[in-house]
């Protein structure tokens, strides 16, 4: 583990070049000492449970590595990036991407869509890739759903996973108690999740900013704990299994004569269902995207963005804060519910373990890292993060660590995410780009 080196005060106004090296060296030495204090004992002595009790194992080499990395990293950073006047990591970002709606952005968007549409039929695409694509698209959809709440309406929701859970459990319970199919349950899951969005949204209407965040976190945990303990109804920690799979206009993906393969005269293959599921989530994600893009143009979408920028001004101008907040909560939650229902049918098994706070944090991180309010940014962030998680599967232990560090680093480096400037929805005569620093978001 390496500490993300603290940015010194001198990063803003670099010292005179003559003292540069000495200063950088001194600073790096100080960081290394600090790292020694931080990591020395905690990393050097590992507590290990033995039959006789706890014992200490010595691992001083880890401390040495950590301190060394901090020292060298700090020295290098001081001598390179922080050395230039006004030097920021910002310069590493491709210029085209910084402007939302710029030509690079459009190009990337088109490429992403093209790849997404043809992924199962691309040469070399195997089951693994399609499964991964399905997973990524689920998160893209969740990200876009949360983007409505966080990015457009500026309400920080730390309990988004609750709605994901509501959707998943709605479908699983409806299917197991009433024998309803996936397609009948999908709208029901949407409505139920919307409903829960309103229930949870209503009491928190008066709360602002970080208070709202903590209460939504509490709600998310409440729902999880209830799901975990209400064993008679939800199956408790054992979850619900044997959730029915979706059918293709009434055709099951089974080996029998009335199955999908037999009807179209194809040879039976388990890939059919995988590919079908992939396209289902692709369509769902596109629906989410289209709805949020269209909503932005409607009065309610404009009200969301206005509320995000300044809640007090909104109220003074006669916007109903109650309606604005509740619709944002409800619609965002609804898409979470859809994704949840899809999750349930894809896994065939759900348990409260899939809906922990860390999942909320992951979805939030996708929205935040992508740039709140930017559809393309969220999609890229989902691809990078979920794909990255998958790519570094061997380093399972470390990936959450890296993920946490990325959240901190992105906030320090580009607080508004990778795609940070946005085109205004309403404009006079010409469309001016709004730079990230001009938008005072998140006071709501």
């Amino acid at each position, binding site marked *: *583990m390496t*500490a*993300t*080196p*603290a940015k010194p005060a001198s990063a803003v106004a670099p010292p005179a070049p003559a003292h540069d090296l000495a200063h950088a060296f001194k600073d790096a030495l100080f960081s290394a000492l*600090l790292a020694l204090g*931080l990591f020395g*004992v*905690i990393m050097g*002595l*590992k*507590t290990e*449970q033995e039959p006789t*009790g*706890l*014992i*200490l194992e010595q691992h001083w080499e*880890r401390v040495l590595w950590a301190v060394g990395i901090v020292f060298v990293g700090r020295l290098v950073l001081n001598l390179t990036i922080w050395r230039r006047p006004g030097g920021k990591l910002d310069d590493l970002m491709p210029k085209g991407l910084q402007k939302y709606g710029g030509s690079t952005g459009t190009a990337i968007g088109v490429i992403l869509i093209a790849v997404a549409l043809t992924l199962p039929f691309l040469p070399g695409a195997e089951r693994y890739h399609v499964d991964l694509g399905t997973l990524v698209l689920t998160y893209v959809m969740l990200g876009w759903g949360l983007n409505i709440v966080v990015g457009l309406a500026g309400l*920080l929701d*730390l309990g988004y996973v609750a709605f994901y859970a509501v959707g998943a459990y709605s479908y699983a319970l409806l299917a197991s108690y009433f024998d309803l199919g996936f397609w009948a349950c999908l709208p029901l899951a949407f409505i139920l999740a919307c409903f829960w969005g309103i229930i949870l949204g209503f*009491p*928190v209407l008066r*709360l602002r*900013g*970080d*208070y709202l965040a*903590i*209460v939504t976190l*509490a*709600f998310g*945990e*409440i729902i999880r*704990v*209830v799901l*975990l*303990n209400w064993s008679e109804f939800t199956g408790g920690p054992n979850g619900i299994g044997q959730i029915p799979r979706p059918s293709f206009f009434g055709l099951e993906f089974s080996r029998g004569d009335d199955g999908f393969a037999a009807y179209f005269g194809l040879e039976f293959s388990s890939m059919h269902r995988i590919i079908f599921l992939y396209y289902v989530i692709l369509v769902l994600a596109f629906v989410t995207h289209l709805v949020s893009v269209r909503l932005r143009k409607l009065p309610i979408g404009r009200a969301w963005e206005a509320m995000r920028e300044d809640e*007090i001004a909104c109220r003074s101008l006669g916007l109903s804060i109650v309606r604005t907040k509740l619709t944002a909560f409800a619609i965002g939650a609804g898409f979470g519910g859809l994704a949840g229902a899809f999750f349930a049918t894809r896994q065939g098994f759900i348990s409260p373990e899939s809906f922990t*706070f*860390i999942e909320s*944090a992951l979805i939030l*991180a996708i929205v*935040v890292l992508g740039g709140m309010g930017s559809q393309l940014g969220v999609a890229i962030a989902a691809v990078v993060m979920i794909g990255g998680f998958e790519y570094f599967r061997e380093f399972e*232990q*470390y990936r*959450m*660590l890296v*993920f*946490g*560090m*990325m*959240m*901190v680093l992105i*906030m*320090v480096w580009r*607080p*508004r995410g990778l795609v940070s400037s946005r085109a205004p929805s309403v404009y006079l005569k010409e469309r001016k780009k709004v730079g990230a620093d001009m938008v*005072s*978001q*998140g*006071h709501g």
Partner: protein
Amino acid sequence: MDYFLQQLINGLTLGSIYGLIAIGYTMVYGIIGMINFAHGDVFMVSAFAALIAFLVLLAVGITAVPLALVLVLIFAMLISSLYGWTVERVAYRPLRGSFRLAPLISAIGMSIVLQNYIQIVQGARVKAIQPVFTGGITLHEGELFDVRISTIQILIIVTTIVLMTVFSLIVAKTSLGRAQRSCEQDQKMAALLGIDVDRTISLTFVMGAALAAVAGTMYLMYYGVIDFFIGFIAGVKAFTAAVLGGIGSLPGAMLGGLLIGLIEAFWAGYFSSEYKDVAVFAILAIVLIFLPTGLLGKPEVEKV
């Protein structure tokens, strides 16, 4: 009645621990208006520091309980302070003046980092130690069971009272406390009047972390079991305590901590222990909705 008394004692002990953590939240919120989401994890790190120090002392052969406890406490506070300081420096200071949610998101990231860091370097398994303090005082001999207050419970409650008094005095009487209160009111003005705002904020984090270390050590001694995940739940509960008492107010944090501890103990004792967390989370929501300033907090003035 006996059962009630026993739950009361348990609740007060638990509440003292929450109160100590809650002070960290309340002081930081008071001075820079952010929820230090990683505070619960600093508490967790300090519990691990205490555990390691305890094992080292055992290995060296220092077994005199009072001396060992003092050494463990000092060490845990030292390590915890370092973490508190570094977290502020790395994750929050660069974000001062950024938009309001940025520090919170950064804090969530920091919390994930600390949790996984401890999981990696110390392992994911639960760590259990033998009880250090045995014995206690039997207050009342009942028919079914005796009402007892154990030595560690007395120790926790007394330590908490002493520390609370000391910290209240620091904030009320010393120049550091004055600086803190002035930064709380108006940072720019405080800076103009020659107060080192950055230093004051750093020290606030250090103080909060040191108190969390006391809580961490007590937690370790009381429960005897820790793992890398204790910080999350304890953190949310302590934050609830801070909010219940009125965020920004030191006595409020203590009062809130005690109330939360009592509620949790009685809920677990009389209703169901599975839903005790739900009770606490529900209280958090209810308090914020109906009493946003908490019990002892000052009403927030909405500035346009």
